[in-house]
């Protein structure tokens, strides 16, 4: 039966099994591939999205949970995500880039909730996201930088 999935403010009518993980509905059915598969078991954060603003590992959440809710992915845009993108650019953060969709979404969620995160806040918020290339130092720096950019802009 067809259902509506709202992603980044756009509505998609899809026909899927209720128990398909949201990740695969987004990637294979809707066709937005910015959200990544890394482990499938809530361990790596590559599949991070926001559902009604809440950070969620889409590999471990059935698509049915997201019906009627608003999903935010790396293809989207929000003020905090844009500050983070700018900071990511300035810090030349990514290596292979594969984990960075999830990192940016997790960082967006952090900035949405915390105005001036400390190193400890960042550690706590970002430790569910694995970067096999090891860009943690740069991610941490870039999150601080994004906060600075945001504060400058006000």
């Amino acid at each position, binding site marked *: 039966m067809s259902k509506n999935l709202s992603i980044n403010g756009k509505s998609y009518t899809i026909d899927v099994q209720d128990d398909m993980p949201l990740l*695969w509905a987004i990637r294979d059915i809707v066709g937005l591939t910015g959200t990544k598969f890394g482990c*499938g078991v809530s361990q790596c954060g590559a599949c991070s999205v926001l559902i009604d603003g809440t950070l969620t590992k889409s590999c471990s959440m059935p698509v049915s949970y997201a019906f009627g809710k608003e999903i935010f992915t790396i293809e989207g845009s929000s003020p905090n995500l844009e500050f983070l993108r700018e900071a990511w650019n300035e810090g030349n953060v990514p290596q292979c880039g594969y984990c960075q969709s999830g990192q940016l979404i997790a960082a967006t969620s952090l900035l949405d909730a915390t105005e001036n995160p400390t190193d400890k806040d960042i550690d706590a918020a970002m430790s569910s996201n694995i970067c096999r290339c090891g860009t943690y130092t740069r991610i941490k720096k870039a999150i601080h930088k994004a906060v600075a950019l945001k504060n400058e802009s006000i």
Partner: protein
Amino acid sequence: MSKIQQINRRDFVKLFGLATGGIILGCNISSDSKDFIPQIEGTFAPNLFVQIQKDGNIILMASRSEMGQGIRTSLASAIADELEADWKFITVQQATGNAKYGNQNTDGSRSVRTLLAPMRKMGATAKAMLITAASKKWKVSEADCFAENHFVINKNTSEKIFFGDLVEEAAKLTIPDDATIQLKKVEDFKYIGKTLKSVDLKAFTHGTATYGIDVRIPNMKFAAIARCPVTFGSVKSFNANAAEKTPGVEKVFQLDRLVPPTGSFFGALGGVAVIANNTWAAFQGKESLEIEWNYGENHSFDSEKFKQTLTNRIKEKGKLVPGSTGKVDDAFEEAAKTVEAIYHVPFLVHAPMEVPNATAWFQKNKIEVWAPVQDPQTARAELAHFFEIPLENITVNVTFLGGGFGRKSKSDFVVEAVALSKKIKAPVQVVWTREDDIQHSFYHATSAQYLKGSLDTNGQVTGWLQRVAFPSIVSSFKPLSEYASGFELNQGFTNNPYNISNFSLENAKAEANLRIGWMRSVVHIHSGFGNNSFVDELAFAAKKDAVQFHLDLIGADRVIEGRSEFPYDSKRMKAVLKNTAKVSNWGKTIPENHGLGVAIHYSFYSYVATIVEVSVINEKVKVENVWTTIDCGLALNKDNIKNQLEGAAIFGMSLALYGKISVKEGAVEQHNYYDYEMTRMKDAPKIHVDIIEAMHERPTGVGEPGVPVMAPAICNAIFNATGKRIRSLPLVDFGLV
């Protein structure tokens, strides 16, 4: 030196897939087939291309795969610099797998090492032609013109012409003789040796970079394969009833193993394939298969027992390796003190964030593939072999790689995708689950080492005996290869950076019961761990400062020419160590429960010294600080090199703390990131990277050399903090993390 040559337009159109006007330059690049990875194609007639368009845009073909090492940016910057191009006009296009591009095998930390000179020359040649074109327009001599920031400028009149406006004229010129091409002086570099941001940043931060797993072809299917838990086991029988009932599943069938011919290729493991209309359905279908396996001869393999077997073997005399010198026995006899130790490294797996995957479309006598491969030419040749399709009818499109680390040089997953597409007569993407990746990889070998050293009364090292055993990579190409090959031992064992007059290296037998492959820094992981741990033990026995002890052991200034074009220079080795000691304040007082450890290593022709500071509180280790200095010759893109070294520190730390693949009854026991763990943000240390100014030296490796120092530096730091010596990785086995 490589020779610039004109490219025939048909080749160009075929390779670029577009036909806009402009200058096209190709360039012969000598193959570096002497390198240690088996080469599939014997001779090369390689070409690389740069295209300047009328609108001023410059397209560069990147011949090496991008897997996070920043190669697309690095290669582009070299051309742009010599060309005096404005960076904002540069676009990078990814080359398909084709011998015309020269060796495309992206490993061995060699892309910049082998391609910098030809890339620069290509840029300089294009610049010379633009200058000639401008001089003709102005009817002045070429000497009266120079290029700057995408313009040619008339020295006398200060008139300028935009590069794009010179293209038509320049395209008519013959390519100037190599001998007339002048390269820039180091002092005049604009991009080389500076910092350039990745050309792919925008794609990476918007989720728009296409990795293999993101490839979408109209009407494509998705596939998962259940492979035998035991290496090279086969399907006895299977029941697909439940799988076939899984919504979305379309077909289930057996896929036979494709056995590679001796000496080359990787083949494919085979198993039971599930074809579905989405990835999740394929995974679900695979989960619900009931399969009976013929486990075959690897069923009895047990990695714990194997560790014991290797340990027993290295306690006995092994095969003497050429390069051993002096009389070790006499040195031990006359010693004031001898020290012995045994070290172990377990099997390891790459686990790149993007799992192995490939998309293939097999059509009558034609194959097209889209895949995250480090070595597209081998993949292509392998497909030609297994599917009997002429090479020219096979296209291997190289996508972005979500990490490679050596895993994606093996094209087994590409072979699988093509076999499936052939069978179902439709395009198909095969996706490995993370469990598949952890359990069916080409593993970094396990190793055991025995070391014995002697000290004289002054605490100087007089003798060094090292016995090593590890399954050889060659076993993946030639079954029953049970001893290490020369290229493996030449990774830090036969060519350690020390000057020891009585040196003996022995190799003991080690069978392979898993597929063995190379992983970031390869055998240097073993040699780096054994050498540096043992030097630390010797320094302690000699009651000497570890840094000073290393410096003494490296010895007087000397240059060893060897067979390579990059001689080992002990002065550079000492310089990186001295720098790291200085920036880390080696010798300073550190907090209680903290410890410092040092390690040095020479790999991929680069010199690295690392000092690690750990804290050990309640028996738990935290890596607090890492100071690394690298001398990689000419540093092409400084910030990228820093990023690589930071990443290598984390990669090396992951393997030291957690890395372990264990095998019971022939099957790998780990599954996913919960039992094959990685360093995470909360555990990440502060990393300080220094790059030695060596702009007049040729560039050497960057991607790998930062890895081998990490495990020994951490273990030496733990010893410094606690007096506890870890000789067997990983630390998690000792409850230390």
